[in-house]
């Protein structure tokens, strides 16, 4: 069972992880604001995550840790 953790306050909301996710379960949470003032990325349905780490591969800010 894959587990993805976001260091939300480091996220700049660029959305590259959203584009990369093959399961399309990542979104930019527009209604939220992190410490940097960005709307951060988050996962909508963790149960669908396959732990491919595509999101982390494309993240420029090392926000994402993937466990499997």
């Amino acid at each position, binding site marked *: *069972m894959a*587990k993805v953790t976001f260091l939300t306050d*480091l996220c*700049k*909301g*660029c*959305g*590259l992880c959203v*584009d*990369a996710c093959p399961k399309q379960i990542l979104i930019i949470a527009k209604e939220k604001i992190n410490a*940097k003032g*960005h709307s951060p990325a988050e996962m909508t349905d963790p149960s669908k995550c396959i*732990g*491919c*780490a*595509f999101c*982390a*591969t*494309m*993240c*420029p*800010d*090392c926000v*994402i*840790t*993937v*466990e*499997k």
Partner: protein
Amino acid sequence: MHVQYNCTKFVLHDCTDTMTCICKAYGINMIVFEKPKALTDVPMHYCPGCAHGIIHRLVAETIDALGIVGNTVGVVPVGCAVMAYDYFACDMVEAAHGRAPAVATGLKRAMPDRVIFTYQGDGDLASIGMAETVHSATRNENITVVFVNNAIYGMTGGQMAPTSLPGQVTQTSPYGRDIKTAGFPIRVSEMLATLDGPAYIERVAVNNVKNVRNAKKAIQKAFQNQLEGKGFSFIEVISTCPTNWGMTPSQAMKWVETDMIPYYPLGVYKDKYADVTGDIGNTGEVQ
């Protein structure tokens, strides 16, 4: 329950080592991707979606994978990556604009057993520092050069770079780069590949997962070459500048695919030590 295992092959399904098997057998969660230790905890100042962060991470992952963080000295440029000395956990030097290969030459000559790399942008490496670039290459200095080509001067606010594409609109080419007055972009990898000196030259991109993985392999090879004493290894990374290109990060990655890569084909341009039966020079894996 999980154990912190820093897997160097970060994608699980590629991973065939014992640790993976143990983890699977016991149902333990294994970290398949986390921030490399060769990066410090200082948050990067780059704009949202700027690929510098990805390329920094690839360099750091390489340093971790080779176990050389305590033995490495990095040289950073003037440009957006000017403050990268705060981001890498190894010893770092900040060079004057364009002079990183000369500084790296000094460091390497002084400490031949240390791993020396430069990290430079297109204005730094291909404009003001072209002489240092060409001559460190032709001397086959045993250093690793990571060249980030995003076709623009980012730090100063988006001026035309030596690698800006024909017709590209920038602050100093507001009507598009006019080749009649501003000349043509420089294909640095192709140019350096004409020299007898350099050991390894490859152009990669970081616009999608597949290319990021290829970029990592290339960067790792460039560092490995240095450890093996093979000489000047140069990785050109086609990157983005969403802010100054006036695009979203997503659009910028697409522009790399549609506009940058056609002008700057990816592939191995020189590999002195390639198997003679393998691809050599411009006939390499050009996509």
